[in-house]
């Protein structure tokens, strides 16, 4: 058992707010350079860049989780993480079916680009990815767990698009696996402001939109090896596995 260095919240050029330098190959190079061993690709309401990042990262020995930062009906951002491509495709179908018909305006929001290994643009995604989908936070939690994924409300301390800003407090009944705090805060501050969630499990990630932000805030996971099962146990804090925040 040892500590693995992870960043579980990284955007790519597919997110309109993602910097144009955030190509799959650049992200993998950067993650390798700073010693990350496990990353999650979490674009807004889309999983489409996961597979190529995983393919490129394999050569560097970095494990990649398929992820997405879902904007729920309540405008709450939630990280949803998966192991297998089958699950990724099923959550992608769910997102596509529940997507409101709003077109992206790149001048206002930025480009939503899919690129290949050579960093050539292969598609520009038309529907706006940052708007709330037609599904509640409870519905999103249910489908993520049905697909054996992990459900983690994002940057809960932030004054916008967080579960606390949108819903006032973290609902007691919500079945989350962990809560993410943003890189700008500390556990002390979170405990001070929200003592009622002191028994929750917490991760801290970079929410990187530019290359130099990757790994700016990390979560260390105490695991036996790099695998989904070990990851899950570490997030859940069972069998001696666990989370250590940077």
């Amino acid at each position: 058992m040892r500590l693995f260095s992870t960043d579980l919240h990284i955007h790519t050029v597919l997110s309109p707010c993602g910097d144009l330098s955030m190509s799959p190959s650049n992200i993998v190079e950067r993650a390798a350079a700073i010693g990350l061993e496990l990353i999650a690709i979490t674009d807004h309401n889309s999983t489409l860049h996961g597979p190529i990042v995983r393919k490129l990262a394999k050569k560097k020995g970095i494990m990649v989780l398929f992820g997405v930062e879902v904007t729920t009906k309540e405008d709450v951002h939630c990280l949803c993480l998966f192991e297998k491509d089958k699950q990724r495709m099923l959550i992608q179908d769910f997102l596509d079916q529940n997507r409101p018909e709003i077109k992206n305006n790149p001048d206002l929001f930025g480009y939503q680009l899919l690129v290949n290994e050579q960093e050539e643009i292969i598609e520009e995604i038309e529907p706006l990815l940052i708007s709330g989908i037609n599904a509640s936070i409870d519905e999103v939690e249910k489908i993520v767990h049905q697909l054996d994924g992990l459900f983690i409300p994002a940057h809960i301390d932030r004054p916008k698009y967080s579960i606390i800003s949108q819903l006032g407090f973290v609902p007691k009944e919500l079945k989350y696996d962990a809560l993410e705090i943003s890189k700008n805060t500390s556990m002390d501050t979170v405990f001070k402001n929200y003592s009622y969630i002191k028994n929750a499990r917490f991760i801290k990630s970079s929410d990187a939109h530019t290359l130099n932000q990757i790994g700016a805030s990390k979560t260390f996971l105490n695991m036996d090896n790099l695998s989904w099962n070990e990851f899950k146990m570490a997030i859940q804090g069972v069998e001696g596995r666990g989370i250590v925040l940077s």
Partner: protein
Amino acid sequence: MKVSEIVEKLNLEVYSGQSGLDRGVHGGYSSDLLSDVMGHAEYGDVWTTLQTHKNVIAIASLKEVAAVILVKGYKPEADTIKQSNEEGIPILGTSKETFEINGLLYNLLKK
């Protein structure tokens, strides 16, 4: 003015919390950010929102608002209805947008 009079005058749906229809209304507040409502709604307000999550009632109860009005035809979720009945805080509904229902409410309450 009582909640029931507002229901009647503005032709609102009553989804739940009927036991609270006698509550007195002293003003209004509009916001869809529950964190904001927690800080700024006041006792006896009628709260217009499009949020339907159960937390709406927890915050309505905390701030002792008179009633919640869901706009644009939004309907409360099942566990929101349950909590509204338990707390006796009515959830009302209108097909009108927030802007329009607020205008009507304002005119009604300022009299």
